[in-house]
C-alpha cells in the first residue's frame, strides 16, 4: 500500500498552529484522543446522574439541599420529584449509550489504533474524520442543552428513557412534563449523533479495506481491527434507520404529521384535533417507532461491546504470552454476532402487541446469537490455558471483561425466551442484564484498553498500584450493584419507577435497594482514582519505552508516542500473524509482526495460508 499514488493521496504535513494541531485536527491520533476525552466527560455526567437516581430510589423524600439550589424546579426544597428522576434516567441512558459506549470504544481507541495496527499513515478521509468528531461534539452540547431548555414545566430535561417510545415522545407538551423543547433537542441531538457516526463508519471501512500495509493480509490483522471493522459495518447499516425514525418523530412533534400517532387519542382530557395545541392526528403506528428504534438499537449493543471484545482478545494474548486461541473462529464469531445482531431486534418487543409468531422467530434467532458469544468465551479461556500470565492492570480488566461478559450475557438465555419475557420484561432483571453486558463489560474493555495503550498515546505508563486499586474495587462493586438487580426483577420490580413506595409487593426489596445504592456510590467514588491516574500519569508517569508490554502488533514497532504519519515515512512490512508469542525456538517470547521470516522460526498457522498474496492490492 505504500506505492506512490497512495502517498500522494494521503500524505499531509504535520500541522503548525495550535488550532490545527489540537482542535480541528486531521490527525486520527488527536481525533481519537478527542473522542476519549469526550467520553470521559460524558461518563462523568452519566455516573453522577446514576448516583442521584440511587439516592432517590433508596431514600425517597430526603432533602438534598444542593439539588434544591441547582434545580429549584426539579427538586423543590432539595427533594427530587418524579419528573426530575425520569429526566435523569433519560439523560443517563442517552449519554451512556451514545456518548460513552459508542464514542470511546470506536471513535476513540479505534480511531487512534486501527490505522497504526494496519500500518497506515492516517484514516482514509482525514477531513471526514475531523467532521465526525465535531458533529458528535455538537450532538453532545445539544443533548446537555436539553436539560436546561425544557420549557415552563417543572423538569430538568426530556422524559422518555433512552428509547423514547412514541406516542409519549411524539405528542409534545400536552403529554406532561419533559415533553416540550427538551424532547425536541433530545431527538435533534441523536439525529446529529447519527450523522457523525455514519461519517466515522465510512472512514473505518474504507481505511481498513484499502490502506493495509504490505503483507498485512486480512487474516493477519489483530482481532481489534476485525472488531472495529464489524462495528463500523453495523453502524453504517443501523444509524440511518434511527436517523430516519428521528426525523419522522420530529415531524410528528413539529409539523403535525402522524407517523407514530394513531387517531382518536385523548390526552390530558383533550381530544386530538379539538384544541390548537393538540392537532388532529390519525393513522400512525406507535409500534412502527419501536421497530425503527430497535432495528438500530439492537445492533447498537454490539457496536458498544464488539470493540471491547477485540481489545480483550488482544490483551489476553499479550499478557498470557500466547497466540489467541482459535483466531479464525474468533473472526467468524465476530461476523456471526454482527450478522445475527440484525435479526433479533424483535426480542425487545415480545409484549408490544407485535405478532406472536414473529416473536417466536425472533426468540429462536436471539438464543442462536448466544452460540458465537459462547465460542468467544471458550476461546478466551483457551487463550489463558497453558499461558504464562502477567497480571498487569490492563490484563486484570481484560479478565474482568470475560467474567462480566459471561455474567451479563448468559441471562440473555432467560430474556430471549418469549414465555419467560412475560414476567421479566421491563423489570430490573432486564436492567441487570444489559447493564452488566453492554454497560460494565464494555467499560471494562475500555479500561483495559486505556491502561494498555496509554503508554503508546502519551509516552508514559499509568500507575500500576492505583490501577490495581481501581480494578479490585470496581470489579467487586459492579457485581454487588448488578447481581442483586436480577433478584429484584424476579420479585417483579418494574424499571423506570421513580420510587417504590406505592406497591406492597416491592416492600420486601428495600434492603436490597439500599445495598445496591451503597455499592453504587462506593464504585462511582472509586472512579476518582482512575481519573486521577489518567491525569497524573500524563505528566508524572514513568516514561514508557516503544514496546513496554513486549507485544507484537504494529503500534509497538513505532515510536512512543507515534510521529505524525505514524511510521516516520517508513511504512512497515508485515511477515506474520498478530499474536506470535512463545514461539518454540525463537530467541524472545514474542515475534513482532514486522520480524522477517527466518528458517528456524516457525510461523503461525493462521495467516500463513492467507499470506499477503490475496485480498491485498499492491
Amino acid at each position, binding site marked *: 500500500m505504500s506505492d506512490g499514488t497512495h502517498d500522494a493521496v494521503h500524505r499531509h504535513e504535520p500541522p503548525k498552529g495550535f488550532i490545527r494541531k489540537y482542535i480541528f485536527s486531521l490527525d486520527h491520533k488527536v481525533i481519537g484522543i478527542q473522542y476519549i476525552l469526550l467520553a470521559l466527560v460524558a461518563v462523568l455526567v452519566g455516573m453522577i446522574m446514576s448516583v442521584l437516581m440511587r439516592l432517590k430510589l433508596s431514600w425517597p423524600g430526603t432533602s438534598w439541599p444542593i439539588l434544591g439550589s441547582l434545580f429549584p424546579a426539579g427538586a423543590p426544597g432539595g427533594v427530587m420529584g*418524579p419528573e426530575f428522576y*425520569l429526566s435523569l434516567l433519560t439523560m443517563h441512558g442517552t449519554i451512556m449509550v451514545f456518548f460513552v459506549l459508542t464514542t470511546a470504544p470506536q471513535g476513540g481507541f479505534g480511531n487512534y489504533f486501527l490505522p497504526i495496527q494496519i500500518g497506515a499513515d492516517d484514516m482514509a478521509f482525514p477531513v471526514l474524520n475531523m467532521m465526525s468528531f465535531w458533529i458528535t461534539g455538537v450532538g453532545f452540547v445539544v443533548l446537555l442543552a436539553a436539560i436546561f431548555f425544557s420549557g415552563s414545566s417543572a423538569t430538568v430535561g426530556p*422524559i422518555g428513557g433512552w428509547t423514547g*417510545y412514541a406516542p*409519549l415522545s411524539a*405528542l409534545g407538551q400536552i403529554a406532561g*412534563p*419533559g415533553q416540550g423543547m427538551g424532547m425536541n433537542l433530545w431527538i435533534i441531538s441523536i439525529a446529529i449523533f447519527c450523522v457523525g457516526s455514519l461519517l466515522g463508519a465510512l472512514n473505518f471501512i474504507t481505511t481498513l479495506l484499502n490502506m493495509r500495509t504490505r503483507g498485512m493480509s486480512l487474516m493477519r490483522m489483530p482481532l481489534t481491527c476485525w472488531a472495529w471493522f464489524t462495528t463500523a459495518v453495523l453502524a453504517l447499516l443501523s444509524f440511518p434507520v434511527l436517523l430516519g425514525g428521528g426525523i419522522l418523530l420530529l415531524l410528528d412533534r413539529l409539523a403535525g404529521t402522524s407517523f407514530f400517532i394513531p387517531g*382518536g387519542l*385523548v*390526552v390530558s382530557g383533550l381530544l386530538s384535533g379539538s384544541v390548537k395545541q393538540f392537532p388532529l392526528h390519525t393513522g*400512525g403506528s*406507535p409500534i412502527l417507532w419501536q421497530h425503527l428504534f430497535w432495528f438500530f438499537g439492537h445492533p447498537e449493543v454490539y457496536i458498544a461491546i464488539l470493540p471491547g471484545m477485540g481489545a480483550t482478545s488482544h490483551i489476553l494474548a499479550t499478557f498470557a*504470552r500466547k*497466540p489467541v*486461541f*482459535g483466531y479464525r473462529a474468533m473472526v467468524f464469531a465476530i461476523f456471526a454476532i454482527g450478522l445475527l445482531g440484525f435479526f433479533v431486534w424483535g426480542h425487545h418487543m415480545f409484549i*408490544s*402487541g407485535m405478532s*406472536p409468531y414473529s416473536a*417466536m422467530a425472533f*426468540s429462536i434467532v436471539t*438464543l442462536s446469537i448466544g*452460540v458465537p458469544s459462547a465460542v468467544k468465551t*471458550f*476461546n478466551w*479461556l483457551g487463550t*489463558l*490455558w*497453558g*499461558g*504464562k500470565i*502477567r*497480571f498487569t492492570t490492563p490484563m*486484570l480488566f481484560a479478565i474482568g471483561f470475560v467474567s462480566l461478559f*459471561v*455474567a451479563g450475557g*448468559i441471562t440473555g*438465555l432467560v430474556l430471549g*425466551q*418469549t*414465555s*419467560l419475557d*412475560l414476567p421479566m420484561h*421491563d*423489570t430490573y432483571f432486564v436492567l441487570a442484564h444489559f447493564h452488566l453486558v453492554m454497560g460494565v463489560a464494555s467499560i471494562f474493555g475500555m479500561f483495559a484498553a486505556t491502561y494498555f495503550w496509554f503508554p503508546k498515546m502519551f509516552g508514559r505508563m499509568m500507575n500500576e498500584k492505583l490501577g490495581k486499586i481501581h480494578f*479490585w474495587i470496581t470489579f467487586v462493586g459492579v*457485581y454487588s450493584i448488578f*447481581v442483586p438487580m436480577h*433478584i429484584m426483577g424476579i*420479585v417483579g420490580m*418494574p424499571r423506570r419507577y*421513580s420510587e417504590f413506595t*406505592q406497591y406492597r*409487593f416491592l416492600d420486601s426489596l428495600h434492603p*436490597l435497594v439500599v445495598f445496591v445504592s451503597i455499592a453504587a456510590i462506593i464504585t462511582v467514588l472509586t472512579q476518582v482514582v482512575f481519573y486521577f491516574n489518567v491525569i497524573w500519569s500524563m505528566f508524572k508517569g514513568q516514561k514508557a519505552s516503544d514496546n513496554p508490554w513486549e507485544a507484537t502488533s504494529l503500534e509497538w514497532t513505532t515510536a512512543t508516542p507515534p510521529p505524525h504519519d505514524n511510521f516516520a515515512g517508513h511504512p512497515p512490512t508485515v511477515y506474520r500473524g498478530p499474536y506470535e508469542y*512463545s514461539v*518454540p525456538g525463537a530467541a524472545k517470547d514474542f515475534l513482532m509482526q514486522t520480524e522477517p521470516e527466518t528458517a528456524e522460526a516457525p510461523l*503461525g*498457522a493462521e495467516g500463513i495460508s492467507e499470506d499477503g498474496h490475496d485480498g491485498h492490492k499492491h
Partner: protein
Amino acid sequence: MGRALAVIIWILTLLSVILFVSKKWWFPPAISAHAPALDRQFMITLVVVGIAFAAAQIGLGWMVWKYRDTPNRPAATYTHGSSRLEVVWSVITAVIFVGLALMGQSVWASLRFNAAPPGSYQVEVVAQQFEWNFHYPGKDKIFGRTEPELIDEATQNSIGLDVSDPNARDDQVGKLLAVPVGRPVELILRSKDVIHSFWVPPLRFKQDLVPGMAIHVHFTANKVGKYELACAELCGQLHFNMKSVMLVLPEDEFRALTEMPPGKPFIDRITELRDKYKLPEEQ
C-alpha cells in the same frame, strides 16, 4: 495476584449463586393456570444458566490461578487452537440454546397463538395516564359502543361510553379489575393516550396497551384474592403511581357483581370487595 483474582472470582460466583438459590427474595406465589409451566421453564433455564455461569467463572479462576507467571513456570504453550474443539463447543451450545428457545415457546403458544377459549369472560381495559379503567359488558355480555369524542372526565365518562346504545345500558365501568376464579378471562387492552403495560406479578403476565390498537389476551386466574396491578411501560411523570388491583373472585360473588346496576351501586359493591380481600403481602 493470579491467586487473589481467582479467589475473588470464585467468591463473587459463590455469593451470586447463593443469592439465587436461597430464594430469600423470589417470585410471588403464582395465581394463574399457565404459571406452573412457566415457572418450570424458568427453573430449567436458570439451572442451565447457573451451571454455565458457575462453570465459566470457576474455569476462568482456575486458569488465572494455575497459569500465573511464576519463576518456575515453563514457557507458554504455543498453539493456535483446535478446529475440533471449536466444532464441539459450537454444536453443544447450539443444541442447548436453540433447545431452550424451542422449549420456551410452549407457554407462549398456549397463551398467544390461540384466541381465548369459548366461554371466556371479557373485560375491556382502557388505560390512560396514571389511571386504569375497566369496562364490564354487564348482564347482556355485550359491550356498548365507545367513542373517543364522548370521553368526558367531568361527567366521569372516562372511556367514552355511548349511553344511547342499548347494549351500553347495563355496562359497568370502574377503576378496579375483577375477574372470576378458575375461568378463562379475555382482556381487550386499549389506551387513550400513550403506551402502558398491564403487569400483575403473581399472574406471570404482562402485555402492553397501545393507543390505536385493541389487543386481545387471555389467561385463567385460579386463586381467589386481591393482587396489585402495576404499569410496566414508562408513561410519564406519575408512571410509578399508576396502580390498581385485580380481584380474583369466587364464581358466585363474581356473578353477583356483574349483575349490579351500573354506576354507584356497582362502584360501591366492587369497593366493598376490594376492602374485603387482603393483598398476599398484608396477610
